[in-house]
């Protein structure tokens, strides 16, 4: 059973620094961290303090709103510190890792739906699931109408899942089998429609084969074609890596946070894949990995939706790639002159090489200043969903909850507006506006 989706609207941005097809072992980091702000919609309550010893899989903190939702340590070691930000918000819990991991033994119970849920909750892996609408950690009591697993990404410098996960077939298959018992609907696996890999042979899933420019592989596109969301619906979205980690939990009874992560971007010495554990501290290796230490931005994830980890240096829980780009902090003389200066692919043809599909070296310059909405076609050009992006953004800005729902806020998550960020000539932060809009919806409607 499979669904094919051909996306027309969108934009492929090709960047220098695509990872080579080679996997290396990254030496074990001294430090690992787990960052509560990554898990939207929870309020962390600590269960450990600095100096406590933890095993891989031991509880670090839980959600205040639902104490069943646990967040556990990816490695064994000693809690080094709890870093707090503004208003004492917990930014990250840092663990000083042992030489070798000691795992907490978990007895997986896959006899029933309840048993599976309990195993996932106890191990902390339930927190890796994202709920639609709102893109938050789901409520365990809500049954998802369907589950979507993304094993393909179209954003620039995205990892190739079929390559990176080659050795995790069994884990992924087990994870799919487990998840299929949690929903009455189907489990969908989003794959590249243009290639035939082991992912196409996974059992117990409905394949969603997508082709076309970014954001073709975003789960929102697959969902819009198969299970368009209305209020009251709950869907789950997971990343194939997290499914494989769940699968390993049920096969071996441990939380093994090992992943193969793509190190990409024009500032990487040699872009390729590295095997490491979630939450690893990358700054220890920046000398070996990066071309220069100064003026480099390290991004957990891809350049469109990732988070800036230059400061803290820890790989995020959901990151399957790390991108290093040059910072664009230099003024450009007559930088706005059409047909001159930096060539970047966009919906306009304002460079002489607009037709070229060559890989470009982009930095982080904003290239202009924020302005009111003026140009109206650019956002629609990169929005494959049946949504009027500017009108939805305006509804979010005004906090008009009814309008937001009518215009489809429940069907989108911030990443669907990443290209709007990119193409916007008014330099609006569309992803942030959508996130705030979703937060308002959650409070007002729930």
């Amino acid at each position, binding site marked *: 059973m499979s669904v094919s989706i051909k996306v027309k609207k969108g934009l492929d*941005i090709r*960047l220098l620094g695509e990872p080579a097809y080679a996997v290396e072992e990254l030496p074990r980091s001294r430090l690992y961290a787990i960052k509560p702000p990554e898990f939207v919609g929870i309020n962390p309550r600590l269960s450990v303090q600095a100096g406590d010893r933890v095993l891989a899989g031991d509880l670090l903190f839980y959600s205040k709103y639902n104490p069943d939702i646990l967040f556990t340590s990816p490695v064994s070691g000693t809690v080094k510190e709890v870093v707090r930000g503004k208003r004492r918000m917990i930014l990250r819990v840092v663990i000083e890792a042992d030489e070798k991991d000691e795992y907490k033994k978990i007895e997986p119970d896959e006899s029933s739906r309840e048993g599976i849920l309990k195993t996932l909750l106890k191990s902390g892996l339930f927190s890796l699931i994202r709920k639609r609408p709102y893109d938050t950690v789901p409520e365990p009591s809500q049954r998802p109408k369907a589950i979507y697993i993304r094993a393909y990404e179209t954003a620039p410098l995205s990892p190739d899942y079929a390559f990176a996960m080659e050795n995790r077939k069994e884990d992924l298959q087990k994870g799919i089998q487990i998840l299929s018992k949690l929903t009455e609907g189907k489990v969908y696996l989003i794959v590249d429609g243009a290639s035939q890999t082991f992912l196409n042979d996974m059992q117990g899933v409905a394949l969603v084969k997508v082709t076309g420019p970014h954001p073709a592989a975003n789960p929102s596109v697959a969902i819009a074609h198969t299970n368009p969301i*209305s209020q*009251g*619906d709950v869907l789950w979205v997971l990343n194939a890596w997290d499914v494989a980690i769940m699968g390993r939990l049920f096969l071996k009874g441990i939380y093994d946070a090992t992943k193969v992560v793509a190190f990409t971007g024009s500032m990487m010495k040699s872009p390729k894949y590295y095997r490491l554990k979630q939450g690893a501290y990358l700054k220890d290796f920046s000398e070996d990995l990066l071309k220069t230490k100064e003026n480099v*931005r390290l991004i957990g994830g891809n*350049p*469109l*939706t*990732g988070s800036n980890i230059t400061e803290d240096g820890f790989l995020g829980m959901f990151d399957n790639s790390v991108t290093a780009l040059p910072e664009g*902090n*230099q*003024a*450009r*003389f*007559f*930088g706005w*002159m*059409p047909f001159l*200066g*930096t*060539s*970047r692919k*966009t*919906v*306009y*043809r*304002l*460079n002489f090489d607009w037709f070229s599909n060559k890989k470009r070296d982009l*930095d*982080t*310059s*904003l*290239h*202009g*200043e924020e*302005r*009111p*909405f*003026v*140009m*109206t*076609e650019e956002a*629609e050009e990169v929005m494959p969903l*049946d949504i*009027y992006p500017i*009108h939805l953004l305006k509804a979010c800005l005004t906090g008009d909850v009814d*309008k937001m729902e009518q*215009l489809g806020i429940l069907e989108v998550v911030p990443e669907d507006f*990443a290209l709007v*960020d*990119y*193409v*916007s*000539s*008014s330099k609006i*932060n*569309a*992803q*942030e506006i959508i996130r705030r809009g979703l937060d308002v919806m959650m409070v007002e409607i729930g």
Partner: protein
Amino acid sequence: MKSLHDLLKKYEKLFLTGGKYEKLGPAYRAFYTFLYTPEVVTEKGAHIRSSIDLKRVMFVVVMALIPATLFGIWNTGHQYYVQAVAAGIEPAGGFWSEFLFGLKKVLPMIIVSYVVGLGIEFYFAIKRGEEVNEGYLVTGLLIPLIMPVTIPLWILALSVAFAVIFGKEVFGGTGMNIVNPALTARAFAFFSYPATMSGNLVWVANADHYDAVSGETILGYLAQNKSVPWSWWDMFTGTIPGSVGETSVLMILIGLALLLFTKVGSWRIVLSGLLGGVLMGILFNVWGENALMQFPWWQHLMVGGFAFGLAFMATDPVTAAQTNKGKWIYGFLIGALAITIRVLNPAYPEGMMLAILLMNVVAPTIDYLVVEANAKKRMKRKILSVKA
């Protein structure tokens, strides 16, 4: 170039919050960002951004206007010499004397338009503590191009002031205005000072200095049921009397090609506007009651402000419909209405201005209907899912 940048940066602190000239900050930044795209990097959202900002977009439109502007300058001189030679006032002049004569007439209009308009824009930006917006770069050139060359500069200045204040700033500036500011200026002059905006004396420079003038526009001839002394080739190349920049369809097409190629202008509006104009033109040809109705439909597209308005003002993204579907309706109605007003109400030979202004006001309603249809579809699905 580095020294210039260092110099600018040296004085920047005077204009920052707490600086001596803090209030003039927007003016300093407008100047600085004109010379340099600032060193600002992305902080939220996507880490990489396209290199297109509003300055770039607006400058493309200015570039697209340059052929029409240069031609308009020459044609101003050309029309003068044609008349003056016929009246025996001047000996025949060559290309350069025509161009220089035109330049002497048109350049002051452009300067007045920019000085008055930008002055008001800067004032509002400083008063509000906002950044100076780029929108007026285009408006400032559009206004002289859609005015008769004989317009007194004080009326031009007044029109510009009215357009910028009441057409734009009262709504909050670029991006917030309802109607096209350039057309607001023209409409203001048209209704407040009709004698300077219509008739057979205003379209040729110094026309009131000599008798036996024949400075009537084509639409003027037609409205009086007279036959037109120009061929379609004259209309296409633009060697006819008219507002400064709007006569040459050829030059407008060159500019339009740039707008459409770069995708800065909306092809949907241009195409649907053309369709609307053609359709109404053919309908009136079939009806054929008077000279205006018998005027061939394809020539309708080449006279008056039709081509200029469709290329440069109907496509103004701020005042047009904002949805792609809405743009089809918006453009079509502009084309159809322009020809209708022109033909059915000869008192207003320039139907294009009124058609665009009217559709500017209607555009939000079109968008509302388009977006509402999208919302209805969604709400219907919601009801179905609740039932199931």
